[in-house]
């Protein structure tokens, strides 16, 4: 009896092993048989105070996939979203998850610079290609380039120059007050604006992330008597800062970088936000099929980086259509990519940037809480 049980168990175990092996090989066969299958990860602040800067680009990417899938119905490409809340600490585990899962062929992101900086070595080690729609910190490509990192937007040095140009040429400011949020995005951007403005900077102040009381900054603005204020940072702090400025009856122009480029800015700032200028290396998409398709799909006009998200996703999809179904092939395809995107001519240099002459910086104005394209800032 005892012997029989053992034999029986052994038989079952053997059967299981055989079945498992069989299953394994079957799966392998199907994977090889189906030409195109894979996942593209999206990593960014999908919730939180700054999510309005990211969510439209995710919708843009989804639209790209939907349109592409209609033409390539034999393919099974899936977008997998990972919410990092823009926090580098939350982005690293997410990056590891994608890096260790071979079904991921590419990553759209990180949406912000901090999370990108924290994760690009993880993706680099795994050879997983990143295309960011909105991470604009200069050092990501200029000081510490990674072979896998690419972005379809211009970097902050270019934006900094554009902001300085807007302040001096369009606003005609003679005395500018420069404020930054002391973080990896705001500090270098403000530094670039300051160095471009040179003598036009009358005073500056540094603030903190999560600060709500800006009374010391307001006092400094009052005593410096500038004719414009620049803030390098994100919506969560810009909103109370601008409100307190307007409460203190400081009615001079307020200009911020793409960290404020989101629908959330108008909502959180209310009346005080009216007339604020926000620059962005993102191109306004009005008219044309993209805006129509986007509205039909999401019920909203294309928001922050929607077209950049579409472009970034389109590069991956073109790669898949081209047969780049391994990470190595995808990386090679993206490195050699050269095509007209929705926003600009896209081809990456050895650092992963698009050519400076193709980068466009736009100034937007807050009108009735909405971001309305004001003008292109010409760097020439």
């Amino acid at each position: 009896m005892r012997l029989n049980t053992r034999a029986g168990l052994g038989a079952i175990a053997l059967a299981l092993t055989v079945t498992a092996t069989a299953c394994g090989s079957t799966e392998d066969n199907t994977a090889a048989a189906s030409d195109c299958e894979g996942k593209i990860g999206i990593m960014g602040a999908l919730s939180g105070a700054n999510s309005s800067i990211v969510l439209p680009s995710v919708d843009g990417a989804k639209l790209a996939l939907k349109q592409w899938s209609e033409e390539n119905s034999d393919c099974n490409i899936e977008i997998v979203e990972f919410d990092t809340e823009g926090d580098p600490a939350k982005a690293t585990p997410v990056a590891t998850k994608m890096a260790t899962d071979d079904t991921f062929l590419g990553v759209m992101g990180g949406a912000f610079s901090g999370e990108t900086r924290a994760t690009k070595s993880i993706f680099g080690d795994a050879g997983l290609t990143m295309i960011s729609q909105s991470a604009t910190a200069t050092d990501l490509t200029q000081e510490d380039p990674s072979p896998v990192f690419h972005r379809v937007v211009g970097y902050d040095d270019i934006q900094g120059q554009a902001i300085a140009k807007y302040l001096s040429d369009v606003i005609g400011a003679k005395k500018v007050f420069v404020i930054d949020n002391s973080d990896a995005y705001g500090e270098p951007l403000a530094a670039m604006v300051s160095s471009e403005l040179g003598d036009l900077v009358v005073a500056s102040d540094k603030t903190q992330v999560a600060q709500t009381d800006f009374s010391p900054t307001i006092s400094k603005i009052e005593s410096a008597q500038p004719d414009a204020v620049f803030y390098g940072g994100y919506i969560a702090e810009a909103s109370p800062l601008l409100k307190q400025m307007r409460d203190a009856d400081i009615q001079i122009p307020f200009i911020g970088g793409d960290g404020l480029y989101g629908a959330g800015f108008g909502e959180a700032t209310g009346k005080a936000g009216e007339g604020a200028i926000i620059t962005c290396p993102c191109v306004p998409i009005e008219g044309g099929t993209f805006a129509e398709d986007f509205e039909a799909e999401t019920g909203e006009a294309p928001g922050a980086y929607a077209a950049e998200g579409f472009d970034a996703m389109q590069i991956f999809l073109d790669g898949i259509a081209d047969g780049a179904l391994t990470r190595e092939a995808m990386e090679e395809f993206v490195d050699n990519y050269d095509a007209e995107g929705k926003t600009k001519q896209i081809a990456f240099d050895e650092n992963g940037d698009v050519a400076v002459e193709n980068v466009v910086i736009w100034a937007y104005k807050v009108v009735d809480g909405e971001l309305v394209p004001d003008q292109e800032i010409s760097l020439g």
Partner: protein
Amino acid sequence: MDFNALFGDLGGHTLDGLTKGSVYALVALGYTMVYGVLRLINFAHSEVFMVGTWTVLGVYTVLGADDTSGMGMVIFATLAALVAAVVASASVALAVERIAYKPLRKKNAPPLIFLITAIGCSLVLVEIFGHVLRFFFGPPFGRAPVNVPSPIQTVVLLDVGGVRITNVQVFIVVGAILMMVALDQFVNKSRLGRGVRAVAQDADTAALMGVNQDRVIMLVFVLGGAMAGVAALLYTIAFDLTKFDIGFIIGIKAFTAAVLGGIGNLRGALVGGLLLGIVEVYASTVFNSSWADVTAFIVLVLVLMFKPTGLLGESLGKARA
């Protein structure tokens, strides 16, 4: 370092510091009263404040009060918001005590369990506003900062030698000090207050003398919550915004203020709060805002090195009128 900026407008900066510190002090009262009676640091208190700010937003929204409202509406909306915020904050504080702490007390749980429960309650409340309510009702709930309408317009009331004093600053500082004087008198003079002091001094003896300990604890949470509600109204008047995690920084600062002044001491909370506010504004002016916290905590460490019980040191129980 820019000492000229500080001394050039010392009065203005001090006033800014007092305004900031008044809110800290009002919230600090909740920490200090609960600590005085229960030896418990109620970390959920920061969220009691947060609920107050959302209540103010709710009242303004329902009444349609904003910066275009007439004088009558402004007064009515502000009073309604005050009452609602006080009731909401006190109710949340009481609910936390009834639901979370009371069952633990009945089981004689060790202090560490109370502490982790407090942190847990805090997170639950934060996520209710940051996630759960958004799931059911959508915006304005969620993680984004929300604009609170401001029926009270900021106007300069007085200009004393270049120091501009606004109506909002006066409202906040005077409101906070009035509330604290009232609370101090209540605890030191009234019969219920005597009960609070008795339990703080010696809970067992107080019980033997016929003090209803449970009722005193409830009272302490309600009073602390009510003060946080007042703080919430003053805060939204000053800053016109709220957020799901708005209590976090204020809570840490208010707790610091309570320790600085001597935790368990009502007047200490006032002194600690105002001092902390002033130090932060001075540091932000001399250096910049990123140095505010560094300087504030250096001051805290220095004070505690020489006076480990805080500036005023006494406990709630020993405080005499």
